[in-house]
């Protein structure tokens, strides 16, 4: 039985009169690969924000690696996010005037110390060593998302979080990204990915379905 890395207990997130998340209970083990699916507006992004320490729940608690983050202030949320979470976004969010390798180094800078060699290695792992000196605008969408993954992984986070990481990619690039996830999973990285795409959702070891802020299905796909 592997270690519990994340646990959501009776978590709700309320925006005015809208319950974006309603009494969610979920636990994720270290090394799990989880995909979150569900219709638009069902609360997927809201959930990712809570797990990623970018927001706090209205009620309930989010326990990340043994720490209840719902009680923490903004500065310690930043610290926890910095140390434990790697983020990937649908729109990549690379800094346009920095090269690929520099974009990776920014994450190092805010974590500890920029180390160009290490950053290059991270790019090599996603197959972008040759393109390390290019600006984001000179890279394809798939390549940009790979830079993003390299950046998310550079500080060895405990959880890799992705909100529709393949949403802007074509099938081929989607395949490349999914392959990277597969390899990371085999290396023991915990992966939580929100997706609309059944092909991406189905390769995960476990899939939960959200509807109206509630988990309506929790499917173990590892078998």
């Amino acid at each position: 039985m592997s270690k519990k890395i994340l646990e959501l207990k009776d978590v709700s997130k309320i925006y005015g009169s809208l319950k974006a998340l309603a009494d969610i209970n979920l636990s994720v083990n270290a090394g799990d690969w989880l995909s979150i699916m569900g219709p638009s507006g069902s609360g997927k992004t809201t959930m990712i924000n809570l797990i990623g320490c970018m927001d706090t729940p209205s009620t309930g608690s989010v326990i990340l690696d043994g720490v209840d983050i719902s009680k923490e202030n903004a500065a310690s949320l930043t610290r926890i996010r910095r140390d434990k979470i790697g983020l990937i976004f649908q729109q990549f969010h690379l800094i346009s005037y920095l090269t690929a390798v520099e974009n990776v180094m920014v994450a190092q800078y805010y974590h500890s110390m920029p180390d160009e060699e290490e950053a290059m290695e991270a790019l090599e792992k996603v197959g972008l060593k040759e393109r390390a000196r290019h600006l984001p605008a000179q890279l394809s969408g798939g390549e940009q998302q790979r830079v993003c993954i390299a950046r998310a992984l550079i500080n060895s986070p405990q959880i890799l979080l992705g909100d529709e990481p393949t949403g802007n990619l074509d099938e081929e690039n989607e395949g490349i990204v999914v392959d990277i996830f597969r390899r990371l999973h085999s290396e023991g990285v915990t992966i939580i990915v929100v997706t609309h795409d059944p092909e991406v959702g189905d390769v995960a070891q476990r899939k939960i379905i959200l509807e109206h802020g509630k988990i309506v299905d929790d499917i173990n796909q590892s078998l």
Partner: protein
Amino acid sequence: MFWRMIIKTLVRQKSKMLMIAFTVILGVSLSTAMMNVMLGVGDKVNRELKVYGANITVRHQDAALMSDLYGLTEGLGVNDKFLYEEDILKLKTIFWGFNILDFAPILEGRAILSVKGRAGTAGEVSLAGTWTEKHAILSTGEELNTGLKSLRTWWEVEGEWLGEDDNNSVMVGKLLASKNKIRVGDAVTLTSNNGAVKNFIVKGIFNDGGNMDEKILMTLPAVQELMNLHGKISSIEVSALTTPDNDLARKAAQDPRSLSPDEYETWYCTAYVSAICHQIQEVIRDGVAKPVRQVAESEGTILNKTTLLMILITILSSIGSALAISNLITASVIERSQELGLLKALGAYNWQIVLLVLIEVMMTGLAGGVIGYFLGIGFAQIIGQTVFGSYIEIARMVILIVAVILFFVTLLGSVPAIRYLMALKPTEVLHGK
């Protein structure tokens, strides 16, 4: 990494940063110029007043009274009251005699002027007899050189100054000369109302810029002779080094008898203009010594008003800069909110983001400040040359003051942007399409 990001941001946002730098250049150059002028000009005006000759005039008490009461400077009760020529040198014997730099007697007179070789007369003109370059030996044996030439350093003279013994020559004021087409070397005749007639050669034409320009300047003996007023003078112009007035000096100027003995002692032994005047009156019979207040005072009030104006300009330009900077920075931060939000998501603390933005702004401000400072020094010199006619000394202190103002102005201007940054949530900017 940090610096690489800052430099690249600065380059990428160069139009906004240039605007900020430009704003700073404007503000700093204005403030620098104003402050340098403000600090430099107090000294300037003081020195100028000394250069501008007499700061005390001594007249007969009745003439002084008439001019105080009725504003009369000519006519009965003014022109027929005289001081004694023999008293003049006693000026150097007073307690503050050493502070008396220059002095010159003036004897006023009137005569009919006619120019040789021209029909008719040029009418009645004012005469002023004086010492131009007197070499005198005091009773103490001390020698001194003084005269009007030292009191009228700003005169532009065509031809030559009158020498001390040029009793047969005159100098003509520029207005009078041009009205009557008198040139250097012309022969003129002066006829006084008691019938004395004398011929003179025009040795020089002077431009005073004041009411002297309509007069004829002669040696003192020449006017005494022509007017038949031997040993008489109308007034003495004195240039003395004085200590700026304080409350005691102002109290004494009202009435020295209102002072306590101790105060009197202090006052008498300080080179206040009122103390010097008081001492002059003790040695010049029938004389009343008055500071030439009009000049000093009007210069003083003008100075105060300019100072106020300049402080106002400095404050307003600071506020203007702060507002402009605040707009520009806020716009720049909003434009980059995705990027800055991303940095937060990657683990940057609020203060790190704020520092990033502040350093960008401060660097831009510093660059603008340096350029602005040197521009401002240029402006100060232009103002100095055009308004005060001289070089303005650059006060080092201004650098510090301007730097402090600039620092707080940019900081203040950054406040809205900082508040925006603190409140910025990564979730709000990162998930939007």
